[in-house]
């Protein structure tokens, strides 16, 4: 099944009709999406900055990570759920949009970076001056900023 077939199938749902018919549904779901993504980026940024060795978060990098992980995961779950609903508003348009594809590619890269951190860098958190956690934090900050950029650009190119 091609992306195009899926997009047409999504456009043919009652959710798609509801989103285009309602004057408040899209904006409301979008607001919750913005709220959720700011929570994701805010909590991730604090962890990343702590990995780099700066920022306001108190405690070891491992403590900061454990403390803020519920906010990152909760925010991400909410952003994913609301984002999935928003796709129904214009599935064909999104499927053909460059920035939409870019955003999902960057999200995948952020996921790979998080996995690489878990496998290779997390064990070195207590090693003084270890490079891996710093590099991982810097890459994460760049990727999440790029995700926000591509997300915002979708709205201007759709």
């Amino acid at each position, binding site marked *: 099944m091609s992306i195009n077939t899926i997009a047409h199938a999504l456009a043919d749902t009652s959710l798609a009709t509801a989103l285009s018919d309602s004057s408040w549904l899209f*904006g*409301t779901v*979008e*607001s919750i999406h*913005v*709220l959720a*993504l*700011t*929570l994701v*980026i*805010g*909590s991730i*940024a*604090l962890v990343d900055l702590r990995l780099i060795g700066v920022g*306001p978060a*108190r405690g070891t990098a491992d403590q900061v990570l454990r*403390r803020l992980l519920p*906010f990152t995961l909760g925010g991400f779950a909410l952003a994913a759920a609301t984002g999935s609903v928003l796709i129904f508003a214009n599935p064909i348009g999104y499927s053909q949009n460059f920035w939409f594809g870019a955003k999902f590619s960057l999200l995948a890269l952020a996921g790979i970076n998080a996995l690489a951190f878990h496998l290779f860098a997390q064990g070195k958190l207590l090693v003084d001056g270890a490079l891996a956690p710093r590099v991982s934090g810097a890459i994460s900050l760049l990727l999440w*900023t790029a995700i*926000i*950029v591509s997300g*915002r*650009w979708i*709205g*201007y190119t759709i």
Partner: protein
Amino acid sequence: MTTLTAFADWLAASPLPPLVTSHDWLVPAIQVVHILAIAAVLIASVHINLRVLNVLESDVALADVAGRFLPILWGALGVLALTGVLLIASEPNRAIFRTVFWVKLALATLATLATATQPRLALTGGQGATMAGGGQKVLAVLALILWALTVYAGRWIAYADSWPGAPG
């Protein structure tokens, strides 16, 4: 309304509108900075208000949490004000003539006041420990709700209609 129209006219005649509209990518780029600053405001407010509720950093004094996160709140609010003015300048006759824009500013002001006064409200107990009273905890919940509503109202500026008779 006349003061507002005069302000919009003045802003429209200033060098800002041609500057921010000189490149197609500039307005969305300013919006990205605006969103990142919202993230900073929210995570700072979440730390302060959830500390009051004993959910986050409960082993640390509220004064210490506020000492680290209030400067971030003020700095990010400064970035929001600056990028906000630039976004208004990109379309001087748009946002300021919509009720929801002023609702957003009112909500943001209340949320800021509720968050920033938290460290002053804490009762100082023995050995410098701080305790939050019931009223203070209600204020913390209220502050977080106000921030969420601010984001909602902010996003709604894009969809709301201008006042009848507004320029544009």
